[in-house]
Structure formats: C-alpha cells, structure tokens
C-alpha cells in the first residue's frame, strides 16, 4: 500500500512539474495545487498507513492510527488553500494590469518608485 501511495505521489509531482514548466499562468497555479496534493499524500504515507481505527478519545483503544500526520496534513491543506487563493487573486490582477497570462511576455517591466 505504501509503495502504491508513493507512486501516486510521484505521478502527482510529475504532473505538477509538467504544468509548472508551461507558459500559461493558470496552468502554473493548477500545477502548484497538484504539487501540494502530492506533498500531502506523501506526508500521509510517511506517517504509516497501518491498519487501525480512527484516532480516538479514550485510553483503552487497542488499535489506532497515528493522528500526527493527519493533523499536519490538515494544517498544510489550510495553508495551501490560502496560498492558492492569494496566488489566484494576484495572478488575476497581473493578467488585468499586464494584459497577458503568458510567462514569456511577463518580463522586463521597469520598476518605478
């Protein structure tokens, strides 16, 4: 199971890298989304996918899953949600101001103070 998860995470990374290397801004943002999905899957796998019940409240549970990776992923998901949202807003503003979503053309702007 772990190996399968690792392969899936790897596939997600591959897709993310492909998308992030493209010129279109929107594809790049989708790529960062896939990248964080792959990361979260990786994190879950790293904590161990052993059989077991949910992390429970109580002292007599015989089997339970490690809750820490889940807590970490929850935090990481919230953070990547926020970052993606900010990224989208800024990308949209950039598209309006600069008039292109092509990264090739998005350069050489003079800084002005």
């Amino acid at each position: 199971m772990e190996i399968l998860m690792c392969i899936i995470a790897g596939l997600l990374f591959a897709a993310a890298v492909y998308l992030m290397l493209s010129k279109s801004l929107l594809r790049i943002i989708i790529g960062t989304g896939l990248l964080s999905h792959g990361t979260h899957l990786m994190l879950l796998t790293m904590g161990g996918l052993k059989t077991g019940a949910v992390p429970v409240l109580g002292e007599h549970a015989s089997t339970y899953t490690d809750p820490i990776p889940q807590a970490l992923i929850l935090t990481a998901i919230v953070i990547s949600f926020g970052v993606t949202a900010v990224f989208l807003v800024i990308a949209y503003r950039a598209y309006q101001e600069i008039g292109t979503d092509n990264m090739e053309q998005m350069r050489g702007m003079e800084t002005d103070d």
Partner: protein
Amino acid sequence: MINLPILPILIPLVSAVLLLFLSKRVYAQRVVSVAASFATVIAAAVVLMKVKTDGIQTVDMGSWPAPFGITLVSDMLSILLVLTSSVITLCVVIYSFRSIGSGREAFYYYPIVQFLLVGVNGSFTTGDIFNLFVFFEIMLMSSYVLIVIGGTKAQLQESIKYILINVISSAIFVIAVGFLYSVTGSLNMAHISARLTDIGGEPIVTVLALLFLIVFGLKGGIFPLYFWLPGSYAAPPAPVLALFGALLTKVGVYAILRTYTLFFYHDQPFTHDILSLLALLTMIAGSVGALAYKDVKQILIYNIVIAVGVLLFGIAIMTEESIAGTLFYFIHDMIIKAALFMLGGIMVWITGTSKMDKMGGLIRQYPALGWTFLTASFALAGIPPLSGFIGKLLIVRAGFESGEYVGAIVVLLSSLAVLYSVVTLFMEVFWKKPKLPQLHAKKQTSSLFLPAAALVVLSVLYGVGTEAVYPYVMQAVEALIHPEIYIDAVLKE
C-alpha cells in the same frame, strides 16, 4: 509570568488584528503601529533579561508536555534575533510614514507589517519543526501581500515568480518534515535532536540535511538558489525592501544555523563541507553582482547575498569561535542592511531614479545623509571599530585555525568587494557633479532620515560596545555548540 516568551509574538498579532479594523483611519493606524512595535521591543528586552538570568525559557502551548505538544523556546540566540527584528520593524514603521504612500497605507500596509513580524519572531522562537513551517508561511503570506501592495506592473510580475518559488520551497519543506517524522517519530526539535543522536550518521539523515538545506537555502538566498532574489526584491518600495532585506533572508539563515547545529552535526565531513563550498560560491556570486550593477537597489541587494555567504561560512566551520563570529555578524547585518536600504530609499526618493550614474553631487545639499551612508558602508564592509568588524574577524580567524584557508581568504576578498561596491556608490551619488537639474530645491528628509540614522547609530554602538554584548552572544553560542543544553531545557530531564 510563564507566558513571557510568547509576548513578542502575541503583541504584533493582537495589534495586527486591531489594525484591520482601523483600515480607513491612517493616523490611528500609525499611532497603534508605533505603540505596538515599541511594546514588542520592550517585551523582547524583558525576555532577554529573563533568559540572561534564568537560562532558556520554554512555553508548552496548550499545556501539552514537551515532546507531544508545540513548545516555544526562547534561548539566547532566538531572543537576540527577536529583539533585533523588533527594533528594525519599529524603525521601518516610522520610516514608512513618509515613504510608503497613502494608497498603500489605506490598503492594510500596517497590519501586514505586524503579521510579518509575527511570522519572523515566531520562526525565531518556535521549538517545533512543523510549527516553524507554519510561522514561515505566516511570514511568506505577509511578504506576498507586501511585495504586491500598490500593484504596479513590475511588482505584479515579480510577485508571481516570488510566490511560485516559495510555494515550491514550502512543498519541499513539508516533504522534508514528513521524512524527518518517519525517521525520528517526533516533531519537537529537541526531541528530534536526541533521537538523531541515537540513530547517528545514517545516510537518510544526510539526505534530510540536504533537503532542509534546499528549503532554507531558497529562502535565505544561497548560491544556486538565489536567482529569484535580485528581481523580486527590487520591485517593492524602499520600506518593504528594508524589511525583506533585513529579516526574510535572515530567517532562512537562522533555520540553517538551528538545524545544522541541532540536528545534522553527525556527518560533518559531508554536510558542512557542502555548506562551506556553497558559502564560498555565494560570496563570489554576490560580489560579482555587487560589482557589476550600476543601480542603488541592485548593489545593496547583492550585498545581502554576500552577507548570507559569510554567515554560512561561519556556520560551516562549526567551532565555538566561528559560531560566535556568525552571531555577531548576524545581528550586525540585520541592523546595517535595514539602515542601508532605508538610506538608499531616501536617495532614490530625492533623485527619483535608482540608476547610480544619473545621480551625483548630493553631498552639497544632504551632507548628513552622505556621511551617515558612508559610515554605514564602512560598517557593512567590516572596518574597525564599526560593527561588522568583530564578526568577520572571528569568522576569518576560526577559518584559518581550522585549515579553511581558501574560505577565509574569500571572506576577506568579499569584504573588499563590498567596500568597493558601496564606496563606488557613495562616490557616484554624493560626490561628482550634480546631473539632475531639478535638484536645486532641497527636499525635507528629516522624517525619513531619523529612523535610518537611529539604526546606524545603533550599529555603531553595537560595534564600539562589543564588550558589553559579548556575554550575551557567548551564552547563545554555548547552547548551539552543546545541543544537550537546549535538549535538557526543553524536555526538562
């Protein structure tokens, strides 16, 4: 009060929330910002005194005992950096009144600066590796807004690259934390350190060391990973640039310092050699940039890269003397970088251009600005008795003692490059003939100049009063060289 170490994080956080409500009242925002920044400085100073007398302070958040919950740890290193960051933020906030522009002031500039301080102080203070990631993200989110605030074309264009780089580095950070968790089964930094000592120099630990180096290197701007830095830092206005230059890259370097002294000191021949090689290349690359550009902002930005190289070299040698030198240089560089960027911002503001060959002759109308800038430049290059001297001296001496002759010589040469680049800047901008005809009317600069001058004075005092700072720095070095002190203080064994 047992919550003392949290105050330098909590005060900016609460004030940031209050400032959100005051977004339309610029004057009230200024008052609250200055008051909050001042209170943060006071709180940090109080914690510093407490750490000095009672040793390392910890807070177990939510009353969960140490290896299980999130622990905030104020050791001497953390609190010294927290105090420096708070002082710099206070000066930058005052500097912003005139320079940031009313559009940005009304658009949540002040709350975001406070959020940035939350992230920076939190990163310095936290004792939990995942919590470090969270505080990094708070800091980065604020920096995303600060880099784009105002929304000029250049800012938008650069911010996209900046965000993309940081999203990727955050992803690698989470992966590295995942690996570290699967290897050690813990997130508490002290606990991880203890577990890694049991594991010893396994290859996987070295892989982890390199993963963390990539993550923090991207943030700190070390050799192959600094490519985003000159472009992104040149886009935002001067006060934001001062904050970024003084604080953001230093948080990355702090994280390298912390992880490489606490976690990854078992395979030093490999990890620290790579670190030292990268440090040299960073210094060389930074020097080339600083000498090549004819632009005030770019020259100062490449000086950030050089300073990161010097700091990394100090970390790589890993002797008591070199770490002490690193700490001296660390604090000096934060203060002086903020001051230089603020002074550079005034120069750009007066002349309306950042191209050095279009300026000239400013010394006639702005003598105080010129001489302050020259003092700051000398301090940056490390001329005695100014503040950069003692740090570089210790690093170079430690380098020669441990046989790293090439590195020590490169540090000395890079100082020369720094001196040459900033003195050229001084000559071109302040000496020479005035080239801009509209300069006859003298602009009123005192409200911009005073906070910058305050930082320069602080830096001079820091250089002259090295003797007074010495015991504090040595206490920090003690805990870095002997991780057991840190571990025992956190786990309370």
